[in-house]
């Protein structure tokens, strides 16, 4: 009896202690990371989450934050589940976040209308709604460095270059295997448009989310149809399965190109030796040869302050996570310059993102020389449609096999504008932009 009472007492004290609010020091800003280290998408989610949190923690550790303002980084587990993502959004909203990184197209779609009401910028880096690149319509949403439609057009452009020109595409068959969700369906209108313009046949192979690890039937169809090229829009457990299946049906890996989210090291590695030649569009450099990544190794990984295993440093998706955090960190810096405040808020962050510019020199300064092309985001263009390149799996790692090249922005831009108009019409009454463009 006494034991039970004392245990209860301890529990009560502990509970009471828990309700005293955590007090943050004055000069901090809060950045939540919606991550997923569990569930069927964890294979892609873990390296991304590691990269994102490592770079922000590096800034705290090495530079004492950004201009003396430390960043409070907190992860909220979504499991790539939209419901949990919305719950995370609501829970972090109360703590005055600077910016939200949904890291899921599904969650991004849910958060876009809320962001404008709650006045919190959404950074959906190269994913989410392509049309949100239109700054006049979506003042609170940012998706640099390239939209899905840029990615799809870049892949078609690359294929046409290999074939010797866009006119050579006529009569070709291009297969499109995709995760049957908002994410995978997003590029279809553009691909259909391009198929009509250049006379190739688009063959669609949808993979439902619950069937991600069982794609035999889709690949049976691929074997029957014999498409000249395969394009993949997969994520999580879908990618390694697809690479394995492609190897199994002896699809020429050289003609199998994934979007940037299908370019994880583990995705390609799953195909074994025969996966050599598998390609992905890429947004940023790979490998751990960059100064900033070395700093992460020295200050965080080697000292046990990071969840990242040393072998994962410099992997493609890890570096993507770093890229995502660089965009945020630089936006904070820009916002600090423009507003003259040290501790900025979400509204200032929006201004920072809208004037985000990372020049070649700046990339060098932050220890990431040659990591990515110069970035520029403006009030009207929240994306920038920056250049991309094609990387190839050599059996061990990703290697760059093409020059950086621009997507077909001329084709994409009118489609984006039309899609934004359509979005506004469907979501009427959609608020008109009231935020002024501050330079």
């Amino acid at each position, binding site marked *: 009896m006494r034991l039970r009472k004392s245990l209860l007492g301890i*529990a009560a004290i*502990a*509970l009471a*202690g*828990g*309700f005293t609010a955590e007090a943050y020091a004055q000069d901090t800003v809060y950045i939540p990371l919606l*991550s*997923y*280290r*569990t*569930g069927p998408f964890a294979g892609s989610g873990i390296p991304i989450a590691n990269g994102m949190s490592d770079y922000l923690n590096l800034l705290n550790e090495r530079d004492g934050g950004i201009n003396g303002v430390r960043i409070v980084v907190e*992860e*909220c*587990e979504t*499991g790539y589940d*939209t*419901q949990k993502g*919305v*719950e995370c959004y*609501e*829970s972090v*909203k*109360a703590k005055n976040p600077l910016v939200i990184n949904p890291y899921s*197209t*599904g969650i991004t*779609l*849910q958060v876009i*209308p*809320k962001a*404008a*009401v*709650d006045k919190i910028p959404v950074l959906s880096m190269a994913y989410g*709604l*392509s*049309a949100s690149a239109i700054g006049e319509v979506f003042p609170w949403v940012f998706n640099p460095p390239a939209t899905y439609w840029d990615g799809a057009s870049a892949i078609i452009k690359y294929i046409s270059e290999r074939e010797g020109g866009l006119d050579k595409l006529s009569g070709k068959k291009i297969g499109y295997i995709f995760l*049957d*969700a*908002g994410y995978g*369906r*997003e590029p*279809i*209108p553009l691909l259909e448009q391009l198929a009509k313009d250049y006379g190739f046949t688009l063959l669609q192979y*949808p993979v*439902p*989310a*619950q069937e991600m690890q069982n794609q035999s039937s889709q690949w049976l169809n691929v074997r029957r149809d014999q498409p000249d090229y395969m394009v993949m829009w997969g994520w999580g457990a879908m990618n390694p399965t697809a690479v394995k299946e492609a190897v199994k049906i002896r699809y020429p890996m050289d003609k199998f190109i994934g979007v940037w989210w299908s370019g994880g090291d583990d995705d390609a590695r799953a195909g074994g030796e025969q996966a050599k030649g598998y390609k992905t569009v890429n947004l940023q450099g790979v490998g751990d040869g960059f100064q900033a990544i070395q700093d992460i190794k020295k200050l965080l990984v080697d000292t046990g302050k990071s*969840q990242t295993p040393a072998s994962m440093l410099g992997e493609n998706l890890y570096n993507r996570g770093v890229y995502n955090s660089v965009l945020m960190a630089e936006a904070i810096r820009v916002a600090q310059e423009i507003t003259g405040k040290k501790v900025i808020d979400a509204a200032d962050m929006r201004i920072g993102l809208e004037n985000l510019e990372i020049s070649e020199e700046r990339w060098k300064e932050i220890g990431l020389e040659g990591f990515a092309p110069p970035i520029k985001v403006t009030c009207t263009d929240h994306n920038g449609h920056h250049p991309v390149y094609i990387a190839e799996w050599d059996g061990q790692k990703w290697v760059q096999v093409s020059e950086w090249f621009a997507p077909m922005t001329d084709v994409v831009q009118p489609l984006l504008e039309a*899609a934004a108009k*359509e979005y506004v019409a*469907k*979501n*009427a*009454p959609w608020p008109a932009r009231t935020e002024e463009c501050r330079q």
Partner: protein
Amino acid sequence: MLYREAGQFKTSYEADQAVFPILQDRIGVMVILAVAVAIPFFASNFVLASIMIPFLIFALATIGLNVLTGYAGQLSLGTGAFMGVGAYSCYKLTTFFPDVNIIVLVLLSGLFSAGIGMVFGLPSLRIKGLYLAVTTLAAQFFLEWCFIRIPWLYNYNHSGAIEVPERTGFGGVVLTGPAATPFVRYFVVLAIVVAMTIIVKNILRGRIGRSWMMIRDMDIAAELIGVRPLVAKLSAFAVSSYICGVAGAMMVFFWLGAAEASAFAISLSFQILFMAILGGLGSLIGCFFGSAFIWALPVVLRLVLPSVGIQIGAETVEHLTQMIIGALIILFLIVEPHGLARLWQIAKEKLRVWPFPYA
């Protein structure tokens, strides 16, 4: 001592048939309702939007499943899909009739769900138990396939998702869309859930509910004494799907704000089934217990564990929740198949005879 019915005499048939024959129960319900109404005046938006609203919606969906599985004995794994039918039909209705009050449309959309539920309930006339679970599983996969493959359902959106437009009612109050406050949404959800719970409670007490329970307990005997299995089983499917459909429509319109087909995947069906099992099959209050328990467990773990000094990562909480819920389901199925509701009932019985330990 406090919970004792000694001295409470029933002098009329009405009093004897009342929903809550014991005074303490009536007071208890009033207190709960008063608390439910008072919560939004004290709670933060996070508590309202992320805990209370989903809790109520899940409780309603669990009631829907419980009508079918707990009361009529028809095992179903298609709950998520029936919720999806409600959500998609509500979306279509509101795009066709943008001026009609959204609450009316939410209630109407349940009818579509009821119709489809009856179609998929037809096999229940021939097959039972596990086999029926498989046919409802077919409903789950078929309907989910429809949500993805029929672009008309989501108005040909590029993203394939349904996005909730802003709708107002009651003289300009914003009810749905991003501008709707959790305060307003909570009251709408609360009103619908309370009203539907009362209606279901009364259906269950009456002729229809009793015929469901007879079918559940022994269908041949029930048939012999005049219950028509066709009517009883199909009405159970209709009522259950109607409730699930309304819950699904509320889930998208008053909670999430947008949804992809994957929101109504099999995992949602399982989630609702677990709530029904943990809460208690064949019990209305159990639906609320189960929903509260499963929905709140991760939140509670995330808040409580760090406060007792255990630093815990977000993903570990997720793993822990999965493990705890899994273990509890096995435990409940073995030890207490009637779930939390039965524990509550036992507690009430003990209270009646307190301080004496025998009943």
